[in-house]
């Protein structure tokens, strides 16, 4: 666990910005990218008429979004389990809470999109049946989280080509980028090659 901690410290992960400065930073940079897609959703541009989209295509997009929201809820819950496990060092805990925050922001953005299309956003489950008994140390928690982030990358990579509305593909790509970064950071913390290849599907 020492090694993991020092790895994380070395990587400067600990020097995460305060919540407020991070938020401002996101507003200036990251969030704008998401907003480019998000804006279209929020301003009601996501409607059948403008893009000549059939109702069926809209409802299929809503389904895809809701599946993504479901997976994001699970990620939030998983980080919660990790955070409450008492197995994480302070430094790692900070990172976990930060990543959990990102997943919450993803849910917010995706849920707004669903509502703008007349759908009802998927809700969190009351119980995810996580294999909690298998999480005995920090490495287990990090591996568990890394697996979820890796899976999320695939889920978004798979969804991007099938959205009828390209704005949603853009939003999904923006989220994918974030989750890929989480995955890399978690792998690094585990002492693994953070970026083990050139292509991921």
């Amino acid at each position, binding site marked *: 666990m020492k090694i993991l901690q020092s790895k994380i410290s070395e990587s400067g992960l600990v020097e995460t910005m305060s919540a407020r400065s991070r938020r401002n930073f996101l507003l200036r940079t990251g969030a704008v990218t998401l907003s480019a897609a998000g804006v279209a959703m929020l301003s009601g541009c996501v409607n059948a008429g403008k893009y000549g989209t059939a109702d069926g295509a809209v409802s*299929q997009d809503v*389904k*895809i979004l*809701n*599946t*993504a929201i*479901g*997976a994001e809820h*699970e990620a939030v819950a998983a980080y919660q389990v990790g955070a409450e496990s008492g197995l994480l060092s302070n430094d790692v805990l900070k990172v976990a809470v930060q990543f959990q925050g990102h997943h919450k922001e993803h849910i917010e953005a995706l849920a707004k999109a669903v509502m703008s299309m007349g759908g009802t956003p998927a809700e969190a489950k009351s119980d*995810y*049946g996580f294999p909690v008994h298998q999480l005995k140390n920090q490495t287990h928690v990090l591996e568990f989280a890394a*697996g*979820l982030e*890796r*899976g*999320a*990358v*695939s*889920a978004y990579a*798979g*969804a*991007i*080509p*099938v959205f009828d509305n390209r704005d949603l593909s853009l939003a999904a790509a923006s989220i994918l980028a974030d989750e890929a970064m989480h995955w890399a950071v978690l792998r690094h913390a585990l002492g693994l090659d953070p970026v083990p290849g050139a292509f991921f*599907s």
Partner: protein
Amino acid sequence: MMPTVSFGTALLTVAGLLADASAASAEMSVLTSGDATRGKQLYAQCVGCHSPERHRTGPKHCGLIGRQAGTAAGFDYSKSMRESKLIWSVRTLDSFLFSPLGYIPGTNMGISGIKDDNDRSDLIAYLIAMNEWPECR
């Protein structure tokens, strides 16, 4: 690169299922030449939503082969999946995984699909091999 081909587990399992009269169907006799070990690695693409032994965003995969689509107890499937009346076999899985939305329009599994033939066949070998796991029994 030549994919490694292993017949082992997948073949045995399918044979085992065939012996089980209730699960036997003509489709099941299509043996997979997939490599379950490679399939396990490819399964990383599914674990955002699935796990073998528990329902997540997607249904659990234990006991998949021979099961009617959309019938695992305790999972809330789309109407499209429930009404597809498909039985999961090597053949139906191959078509579904190639293009979930093309094969079952309206499914909640909104991903474009696995386009590489070897990848699908290795994944399917892994899904079949799962049936032998203790946690799937």
